[in-house]
């Protein structure tokens, strides 16, 4: 006769959290940071079809790491939330705060009420009239929300990525400088990682655009920006940043990580 083992709620939650963290840590990182004209999203993602960064609404974008089918489901629901609210009320009444709340509720319920928590981490960001009114919310697998300023790193090896961002981030940086900082930070995931335009997914919420402010940058534009960042301020940024040199100092091995070994099967 078998008796089910008693597992304390503390232990249950801890097990679920460990499980979710492990899943998220297998994937590659995404960074989100403010620059002078808005908010920049950069993902270490060679896929052109499966996005980690997406448009939600006029001023709102979404970035995620973890299990694709899970965050894709959240993204699709977010688009519905935004469109139905914008349709019923007004386009100005769709806010990142409201969306972050919906996600927090969903993730929290899934975490506590189901056996398998979502292995995802999200950023919901809304660009404002100026940097002061930009909003960046980070949501974790258990539904907790953090209000971030400046920059956010999520995914695998976040400690080193966040450290590199902390060292390289400057407020009010131009797009070139911000992109370069972001790429250096993502390269800090591994000691010999070198990221090229075609293995990056880059998008911006540009407050100077009209109507829908979200824009993906094509590979050619990313190349141009990275080249400009290297030429213009290369000396300055490599001199000032002790932490970010690890990524670029490694031997420039043509690093062809297998595209599918992303850890997010």
């Amino acid at each position: 006769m078998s008796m089910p083992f008693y597992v304390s709620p503390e232990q249950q939650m801890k097990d679920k959290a460990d499980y979710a963290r492990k899943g998220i840590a297998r994937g590659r990182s995404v960074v989100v940071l403010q620059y002078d004209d808005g908010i920049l999203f950069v993902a270490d993602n060679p896929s052109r079809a499966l996005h980690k960064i997406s448009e939600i609404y006029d001023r709102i974008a979404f970035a995620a790491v973890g299990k694709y089918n899970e965050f894709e489901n959240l993204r699709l629901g977010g688009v519905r939330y935004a469109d139905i609210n914008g349709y019923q009320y007004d386009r100005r009444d769709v806010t990142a705060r409201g969306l972050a709340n919906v996600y927090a509720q969903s993730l929290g319920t899934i975490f506590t009420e189901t056996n398998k928590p979502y292995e995802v981490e999200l950023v919901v960001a809304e660009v404002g009239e100026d940097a002061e009114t930009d909003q960046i919310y980070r949501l974790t697998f258990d539904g907790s929300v953090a209000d971030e300023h400046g920059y956010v790193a999520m995914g695998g090896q976040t400690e080193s990525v966040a450290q590199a961002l902390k060292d390289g981030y400057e407020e009010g940086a131009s797009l070139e400088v911000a992109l370069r900082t972001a790429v250096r930070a993502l390269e800090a995931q591994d000691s010999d990682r070198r990221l090229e335009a075609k293995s990056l997914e880059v998008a911006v919420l540009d407050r100077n655009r009209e109507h829908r402010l979200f824009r993906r940058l094509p590979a050619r534009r990313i190349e141009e920006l990275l080249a400009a960042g290297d030429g213009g301020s290369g000396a300055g940024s490599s001199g000032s940043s002790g932490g970010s040199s690890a990524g670029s100092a490694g031997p420039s091995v043509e690093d062809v990580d297998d595209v599918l070994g992303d850890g997010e099967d």
Partner: protein
Amino acid sequence: MASHDSHTGRLPGLFTSPDTSSFTEFLGVYSPELLPGRRAVPVSPVGDEIPHGTTIVAVSFPGGVVMAGDRRATAGNVIAQRDIEKVFRADEFSAIAIAGTAGIGIEMVRLFQVELEHYEKREGRTLSVEGKANRLATMVRQNLAMAMQGLAVVPLFAGYDEERDGGRIFSYDPAGGRYEERDFHSIGSGSVFARGSLKKLYRADLSAEDAALACVQALYDAADDDSATGGPDLTRRIFPVVASVTSDGYRRLGEDEVGALAQAVVDGRYDSPGGPTAPLR
């Protein structure tokens, strides 16, 4: 209907069924009362006391299409509004305009705009021009019962077709019939006169500016003979809404641009009230 399961805090309706990228279909399950086609139809025909939008014209030219509408809404013999807008951006590469019951038409336009954007965001691609035109046909068809009671709406849809590098124009009937038009088209109460005018003004090699001018001329001719169509109002500076769709996307012409066109058209009519004349032979 338990569509808003807010007591669980998960809003499952948002994240689960129906598995569709159509906003209209989703709305039909989530908040059916918001869909225009799901409402109780008036038992007796509605008279003409509800505002009606009037004349719309569209002209294609090499590389795009121009669409324009006058600014008048009428309720019977009364001018209900003198600065109503009836031409809208549908998405980056298409425009939509409405004639008929203004309230229902504007609601249809809003729904259509969200429908296109919703699909684009969820699927990561835009619908084809035909896809958009067909989607609109479905929405018009859902309004058939209302149309039978006097609340008809007919849109005119124009989009830029990347493959052909040109504009496409689609017209509709109240039953949802979708017809692709060649070169130019007009809908609404003044459309008979506008179409006659465009027939004489249209050339296959119009520039974007001349296509816009042809639209303003045609609207002038419509206003000349149809009491429900408003002409350019120089005293209040209320001019037609003119928009173009090209490979650069949707662009509504600025007040000054349309003002200059309208002024030129009105000035020309002092000499020749019938407008530009076509060669007889």
